[in-house]
């Protein structure tokens, strides 16, 4: 009797022998026929990574990405039948590959792509009505805590990661900038990226942490609320006030 453990071990490690008791149409050992399953698993998982990390794949190039994806697949199978959750540890895996050390921003590009995927599948949220904000007294406004839509994320990177992603997918001039703070929003169905000035990112981070607006503004006096607030409203990032 062939246990699924035995089948699974041979499936995941092509160096292992094919389990005995598997045959072709006659009585010969299954041979290459077993490789159909090995191939289905390895190729389908690698392709899922390529679809989920398109900019990372472009930056690495076809051959390099395929090789790295195969290495990842070999030691990180999905932990869930929900394939859109596959690849959460891919950015860390990239960070651990010594020959990629000359591309220190690459794991961050993968982190940003993962964040966009999470935003794509995040729960829907009705944007706050602007009348609610307009109806507040200044004091109420300063003590309000913002509830953000579930898709909203703020990523802070030491490199111009959103610009590198855009360059990888759309071409254009090579990004020259420095650190970027990237806001992910999803007004309807498509995640959008906005690069924020550092002071605005500080303010937004405090608001995301649940601080009332007045408290959040204290350590970020340079932050331009009159620029950030319309931006958040325009992208459907605010859900309600508390």
């Amino acid at each position, binding site marked *: 009797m062939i246990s699924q453990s035995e089948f699974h071990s041979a499936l995941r490690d092509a160096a292992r022998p094919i389990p005995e*008791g598997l*045959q*072709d149409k006659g009585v010969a050992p299954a041979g*290459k*026929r077993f490789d159909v399953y090995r191939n289905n*698993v390895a190729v389908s998982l690698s392709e899922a990574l390529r679809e989920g990390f398109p900019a990372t794949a472009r930056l690495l190039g076809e051959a390099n990405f395929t090789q790295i994806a195969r290495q990842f697949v070999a030691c990180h199978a999905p*932990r869930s039948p929900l394939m859109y959750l596959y690849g959460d540890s891919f950015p860390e895996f990239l960070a651990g590959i010594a020959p990629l050390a000359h591309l220190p921003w690459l794991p961050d590009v993968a982190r940003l792509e993962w964040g966009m995927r999470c935003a794509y599948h995040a729960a*829907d949220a009705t944007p706050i009505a602007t009348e609610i904000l307009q109806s507040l007294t200044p004091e109420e406004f300063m003590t309000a805590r913002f509830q953000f839509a579930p898709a909203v994320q703020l990523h802070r990177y030491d490199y111009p990661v959103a610009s590198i992603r855009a360059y990888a997918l759309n071409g254009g001039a090579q990004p020259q900038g420095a650190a970027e703070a990237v806001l992910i929003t999803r007004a309807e*169905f498509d995640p959008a990226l906005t690069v924020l000035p550092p002071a605005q990112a500080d303010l937004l981070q405090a608001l995301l942490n649940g601080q009332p607006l007045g408290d959040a503004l204290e350590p970020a006096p340079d932050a331009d609320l009159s620029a950030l607030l319309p931006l958040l409203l325009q992208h459907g990032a605010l859900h309600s006030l508390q």
Partner: protein
Amino acid sequence: MFDQSNHLPAAAGVGFKPQHYTEILETAGPVRWLEIHAENYMGDGGRPLAMLRHLAQRFAISVHGVGLSIGGEDALNLDHLARLKHLCDWLQPASFSEHLAWSTHGAEFLNDLLPLPYTPATLSRICDHIDQVQDALGRQMLLENPSSYLRFTESTYEEPEFLAQIAQRTGCGLLLDVNNVFVSATNLGYDPRTYIDAYPTDKVGEIHLGGHDEDADDTGAPLLIDSHGRKVADPVWALLDYALCQTGPQPLLIEWDNDVPDWSTLCAEASRAETALRVPA
């Protein structure tokens, strides 16, 4: 919502691909129903669920699971079963189906439909799992025959008899994948019509059609791969006519999951299925 309380119509359907969304709503052509892969609609929100909500108002929907691992040695994943129940409770689809296969081992999901031997022990385990699924979902499910590339020497049942036993013991229906029958028959060296003759055709609630690729094994013998990446092959259409004579009219699905074509090409395949339904061989 479209009234999903009835069974799927005995008409042509296609596997839904998001890139066809707008065209489906504008020009459904011969397509009367849609099948979705359950696992692609288990997120918290966003476009996939919004599309599905709209489509379900116009079309009968079949929810087709690919991740339950009904043939697995492990216990069913209860979290996943709960997600399926959540989806079916919300959507109230016209049909739910899964596969005679396993795809999870331990903590690993392998994203493929893996084969199992047909023995009294595996029969008993699969029946227990199907009982559990039907109890949890509160509905009958359909079970699909796999594409096989090899055989287990320990098997003591032929596949049609194995499926007949499952259907009889659990009360589940069957999803007859005619392309899978053709692929398995070619790969394992039997006559696909003999398979259909032995198959419990009175239990069929849906038929699948899809394209396959041609390869060869170590001995040079033909080895067909169930790729869902091209048109349905002519001998598979002929086998469909043969099967329909025994099953009577059925919901017929065109599966095209890889190298997905434009909508008009998919509609042409659906038209051919519709024609097969109207002109019994």
